[in-house]
């Protein structure tokens, strides 16, 4: 059995560790979902049933509620189908002008102007379902001829009925995202299935202009902000701030700047860090084999210097101990040791890059990171146990003495 309050704290810490792990797992799973979805076939943005690659399958999607056409649409569908039949007959004439001439006649308020939509229109009108099969083959051919016509950058497609088989086309309709070269992409489409996969066409993507502008502005502003920081330390603003803080301190009537609990903890943490760094250096020096007298002397000097520093750190700890016999902590959760890396005064956010060259390398990196985190957690748990015990021993010793 562990001593009572010692174990309570340990259990609390373990629960906390479990919660933290669970949180990380949740975040990871979210990222995994997103990534998996990206690597699959991309669905059109209308969030309908997954794209059907094969014609016959479109019949099943007839009754999807999102694309129930109204009577107006049905009429227009009728018109469109008529026009398509004519287009099939005129298929041999593949002039762009011919296609464009047809396009305006098909224009209507709520309807697709793009002949490219013909691929899916047969499936919309339930009444037309029968003609689906007959339209299927011709529409394939039409797609070939209408590909050049799709060079128009802005197409208004009804949001309810966006069943673009050529997933690429769907994106052309929304403001912003577009393909670098629609012709290139689309001419490749007729042969391959109409769906979009990252593997095949990922290198054709292009970020929207608005986004690119915002992103570059963002990095520019951050750069400006981080460069504005060091200037602060030399000018009147810094002096004004220091003066204000001093006035706050004196106005409070309390004697001198008292080290807050957080600051004491931070300092203790720093001294612990110092200890491990010193130890590391000591090991390095002791393990190095000096080849000549200069190296030997240097080693000696270093060791003596380390010893002096250790003494100073110890002295500082004793000072802290004397100042703060009991360190009042804020009510609430116990805080962790301050992180070894740079704190808040460093660059707030700078776009630093990490280059990796293979999947293997990335996996090693990630696995090591988690291992280090896990070890760190274990070390923390051991320290918790130890601190409780040592503290109790000391208190018992004091009260008894």
């Amino acid at each position, binding site marked *: 059995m562990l001593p009572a309050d010692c174990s309570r704290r340990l259990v609390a*810490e373990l629960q906390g560790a479990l919660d933290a792990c669970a949180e990380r797992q949740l975040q990871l799973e979210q990222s995994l979902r997103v990534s998996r979805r990206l690597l699959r076939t991309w669905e059109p943005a209308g969030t309908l049933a997954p794209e059907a690659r094969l014609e016959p399958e479109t019949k099943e999607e007839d009754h999807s509620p999102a694309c129930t056409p109204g009577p107006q649409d049905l009429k227009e569908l009728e018109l469109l189908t008529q026009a398509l039949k004519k287009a099939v007959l005129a298929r041999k004439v593949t002039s762009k002008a011919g296609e464009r001439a047809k396009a305006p006649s098909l224009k209507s308020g709520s309807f697709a102007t793009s002949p490219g939509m013909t691929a899916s229109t047969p499936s919309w009108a339930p009444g037309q379902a029968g003609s689906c099969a007959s339209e299927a083959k011709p529409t394939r051919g039409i797609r070939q001829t209408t590909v050049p016509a799709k060079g128009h950058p802005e197409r208004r497609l009804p949001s309810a009925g966006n069943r673009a088989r050529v997933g690429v086309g769907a994106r052309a309709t929304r403001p912003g995202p577009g393909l670098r070269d629609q012709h290139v992409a689309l001419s490749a489409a007729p042969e391959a299935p109409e769906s979009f996969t990252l593997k095949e066409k990922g290198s054709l993507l292009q970020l929207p202009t608005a986004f690119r502008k915002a992103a570059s502005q963002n990095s520019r502003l951050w750069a400006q902000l981080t460069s504005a920081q060091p200037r602060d330390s030399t000018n009147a603003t810094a002096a004004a701030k220091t003066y204000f803080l001093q006035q706050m301190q004196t106005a409070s009537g309390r004697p001198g700047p008292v080290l807050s609990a957080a600051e004491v903890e931070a300092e203790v943490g720093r001294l612990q860090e110092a200890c491990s760094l010193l130890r590391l250096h000591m090991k390095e020096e002791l393990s190095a084999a000096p080849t000549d007298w200069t190296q030997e002397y240097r080693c000696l000097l270093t060791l003596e210097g380390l010893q002096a520093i250790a003494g100073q750190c110890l002295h500082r700890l004793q000072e802290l101990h004397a100042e*703060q016999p009991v360190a009042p902590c804020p009510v609430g959760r116990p805080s962790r040791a*301050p992180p070894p890396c740079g704190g808040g005064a460093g660059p707030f956010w700078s776009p630093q890059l*990490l280059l990796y060259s293979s999947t293997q390398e990335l996996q*090693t990196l990630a696995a090591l990171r988690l291992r280090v985190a896990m070890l760190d957690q274990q070390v923390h748990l051991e320290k918790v146990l130890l601190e409780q015990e040592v503290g109790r021993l000391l208190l018992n010793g004091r009260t008894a003495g």
Partner: protein
Amino acid sequence: MGRRRRLVDPAAEAGAGALPKVIAALSRSLPAGPSPEIFRRAKFDRPEAAPALWQLLFRLLSPRSADGASASLALEAQVCLVKSALRSQGYPRLVLAQLPEDGSRGSRELLLALSWLLARGPLPEQLLAQAHVQLGDEIPVCECEALASPGPRVPHVEAEGPVDIRCVQWLMGRLRFRWRCLIASQQEQCTLLSKIHLYTRGCHSDQRLGHLSVAETEMLRDPEGGQQLLRRLERENTGLEAALEWRRGELVFWRWMDTVLGACPPEAPAAATQPTFLPRIAERGLGRLELAARELRALQEELCEATGRRRAAWEARVGGQGRGPQWSSARQALQKAVEQELAALRWAWEQDRGPARPHGPHRLVRCEDEAPGGQHLRAAEVIQALRSQEACLEAALRRLQGQCRQELARLAGALPGLIWILPPRC
């Protein structure tokens, strides 16, 4: 009362319009920033300005991860948390602690507290960095973020009396299992990321990056989500511009704050009530200090022994040789070199920084060429650093486990034959 319409501030040399502009910029750069009118009313300690300032302070001081839950906290709870957070940061004025819990009064004091926080650190920038929109696939190369996150919130199970060791062992088993799952999921994520980076090669307008990140690709896949991302980015840009404007003009604000402080009645140096401490925490505070002291003492002893030996060996060796002029100049050079090294070492921990350890989140970029890209971090370097960290931690863990065993033996009292065996840790 008629002066309410105008700002009367002799310190605003740059013109009466400068101060409200600067305050407005400050407000825009902070999350949930109140209007400049609130600030002005706070100078005159108007009660109606108090709740907005309490809420602002709460927003600034609460841990960022608690955002969703904390927004719904009642004002009283927010007041409580703000008070305790300020106390733990060392806020010097006692008036704050004495303000009523319902958040109805004290706007001037709150204004002073806000300024105190602003003076001590670059608060708007830190908050903006925390809420920064991630465009790339970022991976932190150190564990700062994880460490900074809050520890156990509320003990789920307040065990009455001693806890069975088996319960602890079970919890630890669960923890180990969760870590294993985490590592497995992480490996899969790495594979997927790598593929996405590979497939989108050549798309990015920024040549350094070369390929898209998950966020960017997702934006192309889902234009609605992309619009949201764009809006968030634009909001962040607005905040950044406001922060820059604030930095340019903040001197006016500080001069004004001096007048605000001057308008306060002097604090009576009454006997401050000692903040109550829980014995458990005091124990821990003592424990930490003592532990650190013990470690340093042990280190000092080892160093003493090592230097003693080396010094003796050195004296024995050198004593026989003569001391010439080139010897003393060489010696001085060595001394200087060593001093510099040790100074750099001191600076390392005094500046809260490890020996050039990579820090912060980095954007992952897949780049196969072996070009010596100096300014960018390479995965191989990070892996090396992590391996050495791993070794250090393993050594530290073994040492601590040994110490733990010793302490438990001591606690167990005068039962010399009893050996405490801790549950195994992998």
